[in-house]
């Protein structure tokens, strides 16, 4: 597994010519790399506010599927923001955690977006969302065992092969466990990294949500997490429900500010790793731009506090 070890945050892979035309001018004046600063999940509602606020965030992340139509206004929007911002392309429907081979049509669409928009980072989830040909539109959980590990590694290999890039795999927020799991989530992720050469997207809200839901320590989980391979961090808000026995059950809802304990865990992680590209996700009950911008600024303050003194270096994940 050496062919797609493009370091996280690097320019497009060597040997890949930048697609001519649309971004030729942009790539000559802008770095494609996603910087080790704070970014936000891009929502078209914020388009004009973001364009009027240059330099407000270090990068934007989009859900790849929203730009998989043949043409039309979504592509005009993404072309426009790509001129001003480095991009992270985040897939939510690849179903990497399922037992069946990946959907080759969907892979081809994802690869086409990589060619067209030259994202500095690409990522997907340790989850499944398609069963047979039925799309369930949720990030569904899987047991952690030898056979599921084989499936996931095959799928990560395939996605890296088709895109020609190193991908980041995101740890999930889960509400159930499986009594046939034989490995911890962190061991499972470490094994995927070792076998496929992929990097990891550490979602610290997901860590906090899962740890609360399953009664373990988020700090212990993060101690066991292969932090050296983290190429991006996600932060988001969650909501509270109750489980079968009335205990607190957190829902990864992305509709609120990042919670205080998640900020604390983030600070602790960055203190250990140094700056890493960090994304604030907010996907429903969208706030006005200044609110989201302030969340990104809170992440930036933590990143600055733990930045090595000059000269500033980008975090790069060891290959």
């Amino acid at each position, binding site marked *: 597994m050496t062919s797609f070890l493009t370091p996280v945050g690097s320019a497009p892979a060597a040997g890949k010519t930048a697609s001519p035309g649309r971004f030729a001018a942009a790539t000559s004046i802008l770095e494609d790399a996603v910087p080790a600063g704070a970014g936000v999940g891009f929502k078209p509602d914020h388009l004009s506010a973001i364009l009027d606020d240059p330099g407000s965030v270090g990068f934007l992340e989009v859900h790849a599927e929203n730009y998989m139509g043949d043409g039309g206004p979504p592509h005009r929007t993404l072309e426009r923001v790509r001129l001003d911002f480095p991009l992270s392309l985040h897939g939510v429907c*690849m179903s990497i955690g399922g037992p069946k081979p990946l959907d080759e049509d969907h892979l081809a669409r994802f690869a086409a977006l990589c060619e067209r928009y030259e994202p500095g980072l690409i990522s997907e989830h340790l989850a499944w969302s398609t069963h047979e040909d039925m799309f369930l*539109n949720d990030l569904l959980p899987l047991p952690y065992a030898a056979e599921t590990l084989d499936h996931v590694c095959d799928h990560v290999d395939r996605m890296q092969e088709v895109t020609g890039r190193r991908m980041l795999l995101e740890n999930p927020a889960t509400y159930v466990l*499986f009594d046939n799991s034989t490995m911890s989530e962190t061991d499972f992720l470490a094994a995927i990294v070792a076998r496929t050469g992929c990097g990891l997207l550490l979602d610290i809200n997901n860590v906090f949500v899962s740890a609360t839901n*399953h009664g373990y320590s988020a700090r212990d989980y993060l101690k066991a997490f292969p932090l050296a391979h983290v190429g991006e961090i996600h932060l988001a808000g969650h909501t509270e429900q109750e489980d079968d026995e009335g205990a607190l059950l957190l829902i990864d809802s992305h509709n609120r500010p990042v919670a205080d304990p998640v900020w604390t865990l983030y600070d602790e992680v960055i203190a250990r790793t140094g700056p890493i590209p960090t994304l604030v996700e907010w996907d429903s009950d969208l706030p006005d731009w200044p609110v989201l911008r302030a969340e990104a600024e809170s992440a930036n303050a933590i990143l600055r506090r733990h930045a090595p003194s000059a000269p500033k270096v980008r975090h790069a994940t060891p290959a």
Partner: protein
Amino acid sequence: MPPLPDPAPIDTDAFSAGLLDPERAAPPHVTGPNGKGAVKRYNVYRNNVTVSLIDALADIFPAVLKLTGENFFRAMAREHVRAHPPRSPLLFRYGRDFADFIAAFEPARPLPYLADVARAERAWLTAYHAADAAPLDPAELAAIPADQIAGARFAAHPAFAVITSPFPVFRIFSMNRDLMDLAPVKMDQAEAILVTRPADIVTVSHLTPAGARFADALAQGLTLGEAAGLALETDPAFDLNGALTALLSAGAFAAVAASDDGGD
């Protein structure tokens, strides 16, 4: 001694079967921490799947929602989601059979125009994501020699669609998507909708039944002469020049070619 847990990997059949079927028990091997019950926990996934797909339909069909009200819409959408879950991970393609579902949905019978409004809304989103193409420049049509014009054939723009209805679907659609002020409509007035995307903005225009037949015939690749004949069959007073000008300015076509045989 209880048997050891089955080492088989995830049973996605069982896990997914229950997601859209509230009658089913939670799947095997699913548990809370320390063997705690997981029914409410599994229901989080049930709720995420069902609610997110209902929300997707609500986003695609806002006029249908407005016409039926939120509660009716969500109940109808829930039945549709359970009977016809999406087959593509691209949710902007979802709901292509929702209009047919509405047409057969007994409680929606008092709103007989509802399925046609749904067809228009589905066509709107398809147009929004359709491939990019420059609309035909009317000068290209003007450049065709007069003796060949009747044989000219058009290529529809990728965003082009025509929705016909025995009801005033253009006004019902427009009023319920805040494109037109609310006003009374007579239900016996047949209208059609032209969906196009000139200048990359999805646009809906009113077509008469004859205008719809004309536009549809041209989009099917019939010659201008043949299409005009069909429209005149529908309405002897059909205004050919006016209709063609309106289609051109709406960006209905991507290309035109003079017929090889000089027309027929």
